[in-house]
């Protein structure tokens, strides 16, 4: 493991890779600070830029963006009370009152310190867990892989915001989109509607650009007229003393724990982790009444949790091919676009990339800290710019992301169609990440199910042959029934109200 990690760091210190990681982190901080633009959107913007790069440099840019957006979101949350990303909403509760009380610089310092610390803790957890889980996962057979894929879909449907019903509907639509084109086993057309363009299926880049790019632009056009009023014009990042930070060990340890653990659960993402951490710290505080009025622990807990999810989300992504959140879903897509097969075999076939990504994750955390300290004024300047100048450029990058994947117009049309569809789904509360996950995992599940059944001579009981398979099936059944039960309870409660 250490050899691989050292190799990963060596790759990251290659001048080009290092520069790309730095630029990615810078862009991440910038985009994260802008309300309405989140990490998946930033990664989509960079998609066309990564086409001409090798797999590792391309993924390093994405990791930089992923890490940078986490902290960037807190800048606007603290200074504007408008979170740059959904996960930063929690930081605004105490960050903004701190700024109102004349402690904007200190609030930014707590956020920066906590983000760095959360990222560092979850990185340690990720590098410890990934080789162990990978070693076990490598022994998986086709039936195991199919079951793990189904479990991933069920988990994301269960844990994403909104109801599991909406999550499942999104997954099913994604699975159907993923099954379009020529069937890999029998070479027979499915859902091609007589179109030659659809013979190879819906281009993956088009699905990503449409569902995470165009749909977000269409949704965020409603923010076009909002202007950013800063709480203060005079600010810099003022780091708290190390002693003071250590005194608040409860907040950062709870935040780090929730970040790493919740980040590793597919579908929950940073939003859930930050609120859980905030709630737990507040409930365990000796002075819960101070929360909401500018309590530093109220900034530390969500910010450590927010960046803590970066390492956590890498664990299922790199070991099982199941994304922890929307950004890692796009990174899985990027692995495909660069000819790598995400999943249990990734550690075997692309170990260099895996270790490079892990090394990049730590370096991006350090870069995030350094860039934030030096360039906070620049980010805030950008934050005050009108979005009408920004969105046209976002649209150009997204269009190129789809176009350059095949060098044809068809993926752009597909992306526009999926963008409108994704926007309508999001408006009705269907999480589009479930659609993307269906597109990613669908072909893997189908292929492995068919192979497993061929090996077992069409015996479906092969999916209950071993203890791990029974456990995975148990988890799937438990999640489904638990969610049905919760839904019925919610229904009862709404009736009594």
């Amino acid at each position: 493991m250490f050899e691989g990690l050292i190799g990963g760091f060596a790759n990251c210190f290659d001048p080009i890779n290092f520069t790309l990681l730095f630029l990615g982190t810078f862009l991440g901080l910038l985009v994260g600070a802008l309300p309405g633009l989140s990490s998946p959107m930033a990664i989509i913007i960079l998609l066309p830029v990564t086409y001409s790069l090798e797999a590792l440099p391309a993924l390093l840019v994405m990791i930089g963006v992923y890490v940078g957006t986490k902290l960037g979101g807190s800048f606007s949350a603290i200074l504007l009370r408008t979170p740059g990303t959904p996960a930063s909403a929690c930081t605004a509760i105490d960050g903004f009152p701190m700024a109102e009380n004349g402690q904007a610089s200190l609030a930014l310092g707590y956020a920066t310190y906590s983000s760095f610390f959360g990222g560092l803790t979850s990185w340690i957890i990720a590098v410890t867990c990934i080789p162990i889980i990978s070693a076990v996962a490598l022994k998986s057979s086709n039936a195991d892989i199919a079951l793990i894929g189904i479990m991933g879909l069920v988990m994301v449907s269960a844990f994403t915001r909104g109801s599991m019903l909406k999550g499942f509907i999104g997954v099913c639509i994604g699975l159907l989109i993923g099954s379009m084109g020529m069937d890999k086993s029998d070479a027979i057309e499915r859902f091609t509607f007589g179109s030659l363009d659809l013979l190879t299926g819906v281009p993956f880049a088009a699905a990503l650009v449409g569902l995470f790019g165009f749909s977000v632009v269409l949704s965020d056009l409603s923010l076009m007229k909002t202007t950013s009023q800063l709480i203060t014009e005079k600010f810099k990042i003022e780091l708290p003393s190390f002693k003071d930070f250590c005194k608040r060990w409860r907040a950062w340890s709870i935040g780090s724990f929730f970040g790493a653990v919740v980040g590793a659960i597919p579908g929950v993402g940073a939003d859930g982790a930050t609120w859980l951490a905030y709630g737990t710290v507040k409930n365990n505080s000796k002075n819960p009444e101070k929360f909401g009025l500018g309590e530093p622990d109220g900034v530390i807990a969500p910010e450590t949790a927010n960046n803590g999810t970066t390492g956590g989300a890498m664990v299922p992504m790199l070991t099982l091919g199941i994304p922890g959140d929307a950004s890692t879903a796009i990174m899985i897509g990027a692995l495909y676009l660069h000819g790598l097969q995400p999943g249990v075999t990734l550690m075997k076939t692309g170990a260099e990339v895996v270790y490079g990504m892990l090394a990049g994750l730590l370096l991006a955390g350090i870069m995030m800290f350094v860039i934030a300290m030096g360039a906070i004024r620049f980010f805030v300047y950008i934050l005050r710019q009108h979005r009408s100048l920004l969105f046209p450029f976002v649209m150009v990058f997204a269009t190129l992301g789809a176009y350059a994947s095949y060098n044809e117009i068809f993926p752009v049309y597909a992306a526009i169609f999926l963008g409108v569809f994704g926007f309508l789904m999001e408006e009705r509360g269907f999480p589009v990440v479930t659609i993307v996950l269906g597109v990613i995992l669908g072909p893997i599940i189908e292929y492995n199910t068919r192979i497993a059944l061929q090996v077992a001579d069409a015996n479906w009981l092969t999916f209950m042959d071993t203890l791990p398979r029974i456990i995975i099936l148990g988890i799937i059944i438990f999640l489904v029934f638990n969610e049905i039960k919760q839904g019925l309870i919610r229904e009862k409660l709404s009736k009594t109200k």
Partner: protein
Amino acid sequence: MNKSQKIKAELFKDIIMGIIILSISVGCFFTYNPADAPLEVGTGGMTFATYPLAVASLLTILGLIYLLSSFLKYIKNSSKFDLLSNIKNAVKNNQSLYFKRLGSVILLIIYARMIGEINFFISSMIFLFTAFYLFERRDYLKMSVLSVLGSGFLYALFIYFLKLPI
């Protein structure tokens, strides 16, 4: 519009979405096999149709549950709901937003068409300027400078530096 009427309007939208989902799932049963290939069961007991039909069946069930639950909630809500006046109000209140959304989609389609037909630099310049205009910027000098410089940057980045075949 009071709160109850708003809820009813949202439920109506849910019903429309339910119908769309159901239409997609039912449509799958008629479109999964465009080449009319025979359904020969392979050694594993599955055909090319097993997976999409299983997913389409599941989606039909889920779509029906979603549609029925939305419909029942809609029926139970006793407030008045006038579809036409609701649409009129929504258009009246959000005219600019709807125009921007529709305009963005049309602009993107035209831009995609233009990239394939004319020079990338020119098509991007036209797109950027028009998009700035669509998003209600009227500072023409700034718009022009940004369109030209932005397209130039994109051209240099993608064509010269990254050598993408655009």
